[in-house]
């Protein structure tokens, strides 16, 4: 891995439905996260190479992503495949979106991005139960400091449930916290961990 790059969580895999997309940030850099209709997830720079329009305003069309502005369509490799205003021209190979490397592990979509610290993508990939992603109006360093690192595998013991709490640095003042429970759990456990997250969010925002 290149020094100074890290793997950052950007979404719960379960919450990213096939054929949908949304925009988010890592250290202020805007990315679009989307899942094609075959079920593969993608993380791209949130910028159309045409006019710089935010791609997250656009739509998934099968295996392609379409910009809202002029309908340019990009395939899963980020290569432009269709320019609707000129449907007959062969699109030059140079027109492509900048992609990030991404993986799904532990029920979370992770992307590789430049960062202050080197972070590994989680190696293990056991079954997890999705809870939720909370956005906290507090700096990433404050959230991480308060959260602690958990046990050796980064698990937190929340009411005897093994919870993975993966922080996403949105900006200097905002942090997203992705929560999953290891193993298979039901609605009551998900609600309990969600309530813990809501209380944590309130505590951190009061103190921030």
């Amino acid at each position, binding site marked *: 891995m290149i020094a100074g790059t890290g793997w950052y969580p950007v979404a719960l895999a379960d919450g990213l439905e096939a054929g*949908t997309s*949304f925009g988010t940030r890592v250290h202020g850099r805007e990315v679009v996260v989307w899942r094609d209709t075959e079920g593969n997830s993608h993380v791209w720079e949130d910028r159309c190479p045409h006019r710089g329009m935010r791609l997250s305003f656009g739509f998934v069309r099968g295996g392609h992503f379409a910009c809202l502005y002029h309908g340019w369509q990009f395939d899963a490799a980020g290569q432009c495949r269709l320019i609707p205003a000129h449907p007959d021209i062969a699109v030059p190979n140079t027109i492509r979106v900048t992609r990030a490397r991404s993986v799904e592990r532990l029920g979370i979509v992770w992307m590789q991005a430049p960062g202050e610290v080197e972070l590994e993508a989680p190696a293990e990939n056991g079954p997890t139960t999705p809870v939720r992603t909370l956005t906290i109006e507090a700096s990433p360093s404050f959230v991480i400091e308060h959260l602690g690192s958990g046990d050796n595998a980064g698990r937190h013991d929340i009411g005897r449930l093994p919870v993975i709490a993966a922080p996403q640095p949105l900006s200097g003042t905002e942090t997203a916290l992705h929560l999953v429970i290891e193993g298979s759990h039901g609605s009551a456990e998900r609600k309990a961990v969600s309530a813990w997250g809501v209380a944590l969010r309130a505590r951190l925002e009061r103190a921030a």
Partner: protein
Amino acid sequence: MILYDFELDENCYKVRLLLSALGLAHEKITVDMHPGGEERSEAMLALNPTGGLPILMEDGVALHGAEAILLALAHRHDPGRTWLPAHPARFGEVAKWLHFAAVDFAPAVMARRNALFDAPCDIGDVTRKAKHALRILDDHMTIREFDGAAWIVGERPSLAEFSLFPSVALSRDYGVEHEAYPALRRWMRQVRGLPGFITMPGIPGYH
């Protein structure tokens, strides 16, 4: 039935959504809110002394306030109670969320008018309040998803969907992204799939 309407107004959009879902024939009269300020003209104040839109005129009675109009339309034109549950507890919950839409999302309406039309307000304050309302709704829909439910109240979509969808879906107009509201992203997709769903400027159709 006459709807006094301004296309860019999200409160008018609430009523247009229900009229479309019910398939109700109506006449639409465009009132130039911006830049004309026509909703505060003498003729319009005679229909709604508070000087706002939408206004619905039916059988010579003028109603104002989007949530009041939604309730009146459902009561009168939806005998199957498709959009307004007859069950007492569910009815109460729908009423609660309609109130929430009218009161707690009022700052979102002000923030959007400031962004689009330069309407004066304390933009920092109204944006903070709008984000608070979005968070409350996202927290609610998160819990609903844990129970396998897709809608704000009960097992079916209701008037609550129509009253809350516009300010959520149009939040980018007032500078609030959907990034922080994952449950609302999924809920918006459900609402978009409702029979009779229509868009407005700022809400692109899937095309």
